[in-house]
């Protein structure tokens, strides 16, 4: 894990002091709400339907157990005893008092955390592959360059008032678990023919009302030149991105309007200027950061691990959980456990203070004290010995997080929707809960196989419905909440945008409609191994349309 030095600490505490006096000036009336708004947003503070929401950054999704315990304690002391893990690897508190925010930020600072730039028209928290450092298919741990980017983007004097928000995602693996092509900039760590590590840069992806899969803008940027290249990308956007229409202000619109080739040309033209400013960090600094992500000391373990294999044979439920929730580890004898924050009928991504403490205890005992957050709103224990998996599973069962549904139909992403969000057209959480109950049967879930449902309460697409194999979008039709279905989206390295399948369904009918889609898939798949998305890509929307709306 990265550990703050005196400079990081100084910057973090100076930020708390600065925001503290900004709050005082707001309360005294020196700053109007209009003037205060961008300042509070850059400190992660939103005004929601019922209260302030504070969004805490979990940079590239990595947490120490000390940090997780602090998040739990803050939830207990300042909020309603729970927190909500989001699709951007952040944690949100939904019931916060403005006056207490400086105090909360100071508490976060004490464990090397912050809420910097988790909102506002600036560079947001950098997200990365949740299996960073433990996945076998990795060129380099993405957290190294993510931390370089985190520092570079923190209080960047030029890019804090961009036309719109700006999101980075990084993966170092062949399999994209960070949905990089749905970000403003997606970085794929690659090796060139000479064996040097560098970065493929994708620009202009995003969700929202205009979903776009980001085009590749530069296949290889050398490691020591990445920041100046990124500054060139950002500067072209800052100078030419649209500021007249909030819905056209993201970089995806600029890249689309210019065309990727012309955008890339303008970036190339700008690059010598940013390079000349000397923004690229010295190699010694990258090496310093890299050292923090050196692999922990693992035991030498010979596979197969007898006790583990034995438990799987004895206990089918455990075997199911291993199959779905345990990812292969690059070190023999270990596994990376995904803890499902999607208990049947629960709220996706929510964890109580007690549960956070229990997970921290588990990680200290079994996973070298580290926890990860995934963009699918689950948690990960990255370093569990196979011999300990059975004990971990049992303990998770006791705290209600042993659902073996990772990647399955009840591993649903849902935005806050009408329960919290002032922009919502419809409820998202309630639909997720009902779907989860409808498909609760474990055997049926396993039979259906890999299937991602993603739900957004409005066209802003915070629930990533465009990238769901089945996407659900809440719309408002003459005062009635309706749900439209999109099929065929994907957020991985085969990124695609789902297609709207037809008119929306009422809240009462939407679960039945999803059931029809699922049964149609089961009826037409070529064999049990053909997943929903593979089958959909083979047959197209027609059979699903017919099942939902009849022959036309």
């Amino acid at each position: 894990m990265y550990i703050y030095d005196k400079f990081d600490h100084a910057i973090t505490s100076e930020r708390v002091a600065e925001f503290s006096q900004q709050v005082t000036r707001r309360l005294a009336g020196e700053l109007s709400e209009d003037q205060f708004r961008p300042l509070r947003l850059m400190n992660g503070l939103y005004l929601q339907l019922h209260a302030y929401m504070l969004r805490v950054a979990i940079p590239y999704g990595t947490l120490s157990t000390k940090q997780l315990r602090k998040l739990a304690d803050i939830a207990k002391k300042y909020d309603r005893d729970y927190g909500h893990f989001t699709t951007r690897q952040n944690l949100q508190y939904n019931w916060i008092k403005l006056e207490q925010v400086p105090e909360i930020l100071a508490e976060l600072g004490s464990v090397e955390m912050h809420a910097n730039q988790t909102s506002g028209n600036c560079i947001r928290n950098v997200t990365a592959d949740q299996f960073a450092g433990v996945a076998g298919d990795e060129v380099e741990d993405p957290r190294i360059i993510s931390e370089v980017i985190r520092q570079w983007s923190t209080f960047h004097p030029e890019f804090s008032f961009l036309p719109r928000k700006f999101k980075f995602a990084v993966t170092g693996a062949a399999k994209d678990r960070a949905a990089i092509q749905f970000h403003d900039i997606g970085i794929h760590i690659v090796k060139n023919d000479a064996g040097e590590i560098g970065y493929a840069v994708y620009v202009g992806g995003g969700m929202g009302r205009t979903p776009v899969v980001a085009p590749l803008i530069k296949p290889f940027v050398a490691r020591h030149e990445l920041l100046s290249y990124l500054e060139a990308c950002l500067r072209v956007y800052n100078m030419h991105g649209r500021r007249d229409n909030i819905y056209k202000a993201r970089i995806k619109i600029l890249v689309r309007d210019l065309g990727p080739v012309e955008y890339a040309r303008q970036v190339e033209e700008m690059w010598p200027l940013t390079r000349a400013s000397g923004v690229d960090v010295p190699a010694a600094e990258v090496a310093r950061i890299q050292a923090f992500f050196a692999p922990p000391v693992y035991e030498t373990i010979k596979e197969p691990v007898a006790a583990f294999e034995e438990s799987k044979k004895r206990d089918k439920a455990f075997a199911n959980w291993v199959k779905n929730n345990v990812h292969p580890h690059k070190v023999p004898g270990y596994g990376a456990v995904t803890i499902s924050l999607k208990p049947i009928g629960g709220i996706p991504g929510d964890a109580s203070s007690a549960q956070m403490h229990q997970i921290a205890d588990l990680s200290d005992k079994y996973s070298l004290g580290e926890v990860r957050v995934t963009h699918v709103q689950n948690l990960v224990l990255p370093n569990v010995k196979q011999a300990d998996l059975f004990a971990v599973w049992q303990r998770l069962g006791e705290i209600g997080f042993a659902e073996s549904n990772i990647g399955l139909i009840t591993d649903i992403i849902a935005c806050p929707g009408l329960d919290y969000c002032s922009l919502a057209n419809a409820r998202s959480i309630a639909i997720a809960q009902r779907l989860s109950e409808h498909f609760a049967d474990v055997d049926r879930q396993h039979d259906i196989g890999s299937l991602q449902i993603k739900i957004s309460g409005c066209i802003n697409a915070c629930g990533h419905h465009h990238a769901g194999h089945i996407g659900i979008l809440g719309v408002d039709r003459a005062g009635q909440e309706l749900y439209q279905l999109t099929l065929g989206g994907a957020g991985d390295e085969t990124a695609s945008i789902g297609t709207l399948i037809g008119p929306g369904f009422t809240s009462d009918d939407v679960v039945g409609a999803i059931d029809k889609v699922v049964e149609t898939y089961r009826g037409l798949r070529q064999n049990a191994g053909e997943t929903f998305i593979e089958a959909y890509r083979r047959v197209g929307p027609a059979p699903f349309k017919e099942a939902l709306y009849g022959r036309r």
Partner: protein
Amino acid sequence: MAVVDRAGPIADSWTRLADDQAPAAGATVIVSFARLKNEHNSLFSAAGKVGVEIAGDVKLEELEPFLPRLGLIVVRMNNMRDGRLFSIGRMLRENYKYAADMRAAGDLIPDQMLYLLRCGFTSFEVKDGFPIDSLRRSVAAYTHWYQRIANSATPVTELRHGAAHGGEP
């Protein structure tokens, strides 16, 4: 309207010339960019010092030929959220090597001025009653930075590896 720098109010010797107004001999004047382009010869010979006001859509390569002789550039943004100001400032300083006074104008708040200073601005045009205390506090809010920006302090990425602390702010 008042003019301030990082320390507080400063005297402003510049007068703004309407496009049809002739400069008094030896005067210190701010003109529009259109006028500068058309009349630079006569302006530079008549006036004592010439400044120009530009907006966010400026083409810096058109401004470039005049830079060595300009005594002031005013960059005006009517909305505090229009961040083109910051890029224009950096490019003028870092790439075009513009060295004289550079002034940000528009609906700015004190909390933005540290960033503007770091991007190379040296003065600000503000409304009367601008909170000077907040300005002074805001520009002194941080001791260190992560980024290497020309004209500004040595970033921590270099301090960590033995570089000497230097520069402002």
